[in-house]
């Protein structure tokens, strides 16, 4: 270990390497997207692509596991699953390399945070905005969110964050620096996601650090609307919310559509996981809100009018008690329209800071069924049934996210969280859902074991790119932990 640390210090400088136990322990995170997490053996903080290359060559030669970590906002997902790993803390690589307002993209390094990007654009290019994650703290990085197929505040309109990626610079474990998309050509800009042949950009999206270290990413930037507003539907039950929402989404005019059930709102103030707080009168049982943007008040009013028409049609069918406009107060509207925001953070106040997002991609049309199933499973395990959902790509897909609030001090509760996750995964998989960010302990092994052809190809690709299996072992059920 000492020899490895010395070699790493030779690459990045003494002050950027530490194998000190407290420094390594400080990276552990049990929650957000993964509750299993180990301290690394050593932490390295590279500043340049050249340093990343040298680190990977060293690790590959010695067959030492490497875990890339940009902002760490995926929680346990961005920390080692195996003992003896090198954690690459990429926060020193925090340059906004380029902005092109004609092709409408920005190129960023992995340490660029949402806050940094947002403020930079506000000051330099106020007509444009990057797709930053919504709800996640502004310390989340653009590369982390886009690479992990995350959800951003324009995902309803433009698809998951991964859809906005136009190219990557990746250091693969054998030390080569690879560019994907149009910029693979030495003469081309980052304007197009494809080069000739297959989508090699897509190969790395969702790979959870198992194939290489992304050192640059080109992402689309989007126009800043001149006027914005939020309107919301409330409903008496899950079954009344999805179809009206889908009809609104089919207009393809909505920036962001998201909602949830009432425990999503009440859990912020609740003290214990069970029983859930009773439903207050002012909250609908479930709701969806639509964030809208337009270039003029007239255009905005037209969009709102169309939404209004959809609602009224459904009211004739379902009754006004079952589907209705939910008038939000100004504070809620401002909170929703504030980007970046810190909306998700107070959920940790529920009890003891234990928070696990178990998120699934589902066909939007089926989102209510997933929401109901999640409620049933969570109630069975006596976790407050907190459900968030959002529409992606105008409702072609949806995200259903049960939020498990637990007491991390209790080992018994951690076991119950995993038991719940296992049960929900079995059900959701049967129902046709796809895990959003598959965790290593439950989702990946279960899903891969039932997707034989896909898994086989993925393993071969992994073998080709990372022959020694050094990149984030334990994730995606690759190489070191094969599901049966």
């Amino acid at each position, binding site marked *: 270990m000492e020899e490895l640390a010395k070699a790493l210090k030779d690459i990045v400088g003494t*002050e*950027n390497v*530490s194998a*000190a*136990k*407290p*420094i390594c*322990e*400080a*990276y*552990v*995170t049990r*929650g*957000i997207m993964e509750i299993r997490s180990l*301290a690394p053996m050593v*932490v390295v*903080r590279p500043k340049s692509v050249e340093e990343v290359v040298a680190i990977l060559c060293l690790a590959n030669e010695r067959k030492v596991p490497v875990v890339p970590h940009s*902002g*760490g*906002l995926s*929680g346990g997902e961005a920390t080692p699953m195996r003992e003896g790993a090198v954690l690459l*803390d990429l*926060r*020193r690589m925090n340059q906004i390399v380029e902005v092109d307002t004609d092709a409408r993209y920005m190129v960023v390094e992995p340490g660029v*945070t949402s*806050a*940094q990007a*947002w*403020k930079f654009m*506000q000051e330099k290019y106020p007509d444009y905005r990057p797709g930053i994650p919504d709800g996640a*703290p*502004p*310390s989340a990085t653009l590369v982390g969110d886009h690479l992990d197929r995350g959800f951003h505040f324009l995902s309803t309109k433009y698809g998951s964050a991964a859809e906005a990626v136009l190219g990557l610079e990746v250091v693969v474990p054998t030390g080569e620096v690879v560019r994907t998309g149009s910029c693979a050509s030495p003469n081309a800009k980052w304007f197009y996601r494809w080069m000739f042949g297959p989508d090699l950009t897509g190969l790395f999206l969702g790979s959870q650090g198992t194939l290489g270290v992304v050192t640059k990413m080109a992402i689309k930037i989007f126009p*800043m609307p001149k006027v*914005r507003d939020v309107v919301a539907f409330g409903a008496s039950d899950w079954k009344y919310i999805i179809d009206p929402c889908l009809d609104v989404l089919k207009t393809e005019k909505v920036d962001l559509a998201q909602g949830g059930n009432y425990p999503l709102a009440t859990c*912020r*103030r609740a*003290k214990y996981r069970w029983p859930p707080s009773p439903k207050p009168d002012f909250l609908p049982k479930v709701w969806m809100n639509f964030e809208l943007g337009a270039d003029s008040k007239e255009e905005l009013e037209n969009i709102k009018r169309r939404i209004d028409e959809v609602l009224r049609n459904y009211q004739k069918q379902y009754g006004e008690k079952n589907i209705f406009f939910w008038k939000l107060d100004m504070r809620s509207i*401002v909170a929703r*329209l*504030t*980007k970046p925001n*810190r909306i*998700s*953070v*107070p959920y*940790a*106040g529920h009890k*003891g*800071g*234990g*928070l696990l997002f178990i998120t699934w991609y589902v066909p939007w049309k089926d989102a209510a069924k997933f929401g109901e199933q999640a409620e049933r499973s969570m109630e069975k395990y006596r976790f407050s049934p907190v459900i968030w959902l959002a529409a992606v790509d105008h409702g072609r897909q949806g995200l259903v996210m049960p939020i498990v609030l637990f*007491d*991390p*001090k209790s080992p018994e509760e951690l076991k119950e969280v995993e038991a719940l996750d296992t049960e929900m995964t079995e059900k959701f998989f049967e129902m046709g859902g796809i895990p959003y960010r598959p965790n290593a302990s439950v989702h990946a092994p279960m899903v891969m074991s039932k997707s034989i052809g896909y898994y086989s190809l993925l393993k071969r690709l992994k073998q080709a790119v990372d022959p020694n299996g050094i990149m984030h072992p334990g994730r995606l059920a690759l190489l070191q932990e094969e599901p049966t």
Partner: protein
Amino acid sequence: MKYLEKFREDAYNCLHCRLCTFTWMWPTEPGVWPEGSFQSTCPSGEKFKFEAFFGGGRSWIARSMLEGKQNPSDPELVDVLFACPTCGSCQQQCTLEEPEVGYRHRIIALIETMRAECVKAGLGLPGKQKAFGIHVGKEHNPYMELHKDRLAWLPSEVKLPEKSETVYFVGCTSAYRQKELARATVEVFQKAGVDFTILRDEWCCASPLLRTGQWETDWVSAKSIAQHNTQEAERAGAKRIVTTCAGCYRTWKKDYVEEEYKDILETSHEFEVLHTTELLERLLKGGEIELGKEVKMRVTYHDPCHLGRHVSVYDPPRNVLKIIPGIELVEMPRIRENAWCCGSGGGVKSGYPDWAVEIAGERLKEAEKLGVDAIVSACPFCWRNLSDAINKYGSKLKMYDVIELVNQALG
């Protein structure tokens, strides 16, 4: 882990969301973020960079200590725990929604408690921290001065009563180092006709010990100091304690009476505790004093952490400055809850003196961009460290405490 166990809930409340790493200011209008938003906020993290040096990382170290994974006498803990001015910005950023959702994450208490656990386990303290702790035990001040000289700053012509309802608690920094601030305070009180006295046997308030984990050691006892000071104040007939030092203020106002240190200090009091700026604001608003002389100066105000974030006193010093004729107050981007620390607190000035001045240097840069004549604060410890940075970096800024400007304005 007797001390740390009390804060178990806080340690486990960290989600590791990294909000503790930058400032948060709400938009002034939709989509428009103030200049002070999303700025670096943690001197420790900005200097040492690894996650362990931010509030969140330290919370996870507390977890690992509670889970027995971290030996409190491990020398590798020294910098991780002590290279932090405990300015409280991490806690401020983390618990912004606290009143709304009942979320509690007392990061400063966690850090101080871990320090105490480590000291108890025999871990060495950085720099001169142990030396000053020993000296506080012997001579009741951390400045290696003699206790008998504590009142040497007081002009011989100043005669104070044995007893008074108002006690000016001078503090070690004003008594031994920034004596001009102690004298200015006395002059202002006399000009304002405040009936007050000074403790005849004032000891260090114990703040340096509490901040550096030297709670109950072989060389000093924070409890005996707190109990001595409260008894002295009672003997002096005090109903209110006034301090010019933000560190003493926090200690009297919070540590002597509130839950966090209650079982360590085993003391309590019912005195009203005021910072001089609070008292002056009260006197000025009540028309009891009038500032007649113009002090023509463009200044900016630096919030001391122990006065601002720790005890939420933000407006009184500003209100006093605004009343002084001729003073133009201009604000820096990072102010109030989001103020950048001067770098002297939490034992950093004694443990990491060069870095302390470096932190203050960053504050000076922020002030210099405003084109002001002076940076003003309300704490002798901030005064010292910012002055050291002015000298080190050759800044043209002048350094004042609010009390000095008020004294000038009183003529």
